[in-house]
């Protein structure tokens, strides 16, 4: 397989065609583009960093193993989301669902802000809010995490939680409402 440099501006469809013709660099670019999103989905479903990493890895192995089955006219992002979802739920079925809080183990993403004290306050509050989110019904919890953590559209959320776009929107808003209620916000 040939090693070539791929400019980042190439669309998913072009990269997939390059993968068809055996270009490893195109595969790397697609992995770089989607691993974070894929990990986020696996993490939201599995709630464990190691399990999510494994599921994410398996997801990409399956993506490229079955790349021949991917129809060029489809949406590659959507296809990756579906495989990530299936892989996560498959791991969830196979392994015992460990419910311990894992947020101390993973590296949080902190933004640079001028107001450091506000950042610290938000971080402390964030732990509390994250704990409360875990008490929500699965569909509401997933809708909130996928919307806020990964920025997915309601259509994409529906694809993952197995409901319609409208239903995932309702799950999200109900979840936010319940969170506000539980946190006394």
């Amino acid at each position, binding site marked *: *397989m040939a090693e070539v440099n791929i400019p980042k501006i190439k669309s998913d469809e072009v990269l997939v065609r390059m993968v068809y013709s055996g270009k*490893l660099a195109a*595969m*790397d670019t697609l*992995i*770089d583009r989607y*691993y*974070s999103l894929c*990990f*986020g989905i696996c*993490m939201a479903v599995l709630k464990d*960093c190691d399990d*999510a*990493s494994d599921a*994410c*890895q398996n997801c*990409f*192995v399956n993506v*490229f*193993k079955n790349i021949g089955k991917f129809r060029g006219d489809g949406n590659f992002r959507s296809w990756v989301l579906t495989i990530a979802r299936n892989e996560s739920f498959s791991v969830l079925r196979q392994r015992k669902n460990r419910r311990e809080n*894992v*947020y101390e183990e*993973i*590296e*949080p*993403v*902190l*933004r640079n802000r001028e107001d450091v004290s506000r*950042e610290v306050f*938000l*971080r402390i*509050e*964030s*732990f509390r*809010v*994250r704990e409360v*989110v875990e008490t929500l019904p699965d569909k509401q919890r997933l809708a*909130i995490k996928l*919307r*806020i*953590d990964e*920025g997915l559209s309601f259509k994409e959320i529906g694809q993952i939680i197995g409901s319609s776009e409208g239903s995932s929107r309702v799950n999200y*808003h109900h979840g*936010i409402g319940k*969170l*506000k209620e539980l*946190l006394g*916000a």
Partner: protein
Amino acid sequence: MIIWECIEAKGYLSAGVRGELSEPIKAELDRHVLDCSDCKGELELIEKLFILRPAAPLQLPLEIKKAVRLEFFEAETSYWRKFLPAAAVTTLLVSASLLDKVLFLPDISLLEQDFFVNVWPSEDYDLAGSLVLDDFSEESLNLLFEEIK
């Protein structure tokens, strides 16, 4: 100026926290949030959730690339592996055929058997291929030299 209802503003809150809004929409959202305590509360809640969102381990993309390549090369190797028995049989047949040629040489002339024999080059069909041997008489060699000239 766009006047937003809460339902519309709430649709932009998570994108706003993620920094994905264009400047005009962000300005409009900020203006709405300033006047709306409900949206302001929801924005703060989303900020709290977003700040500790799980990030993928740094080594994960490398591990994925490694796993994918391994899978790809394994697939390629296993594709060629199915031709191995055929290749082995062909090699055996060729070897046996060569061995047969070496061990059971047919009756051939002295000239054909000795790879290092020197033969006389000539356009004259009768002289061409004559063996150049030490025991050739001087007269015979002279004849050959004459022929070459």
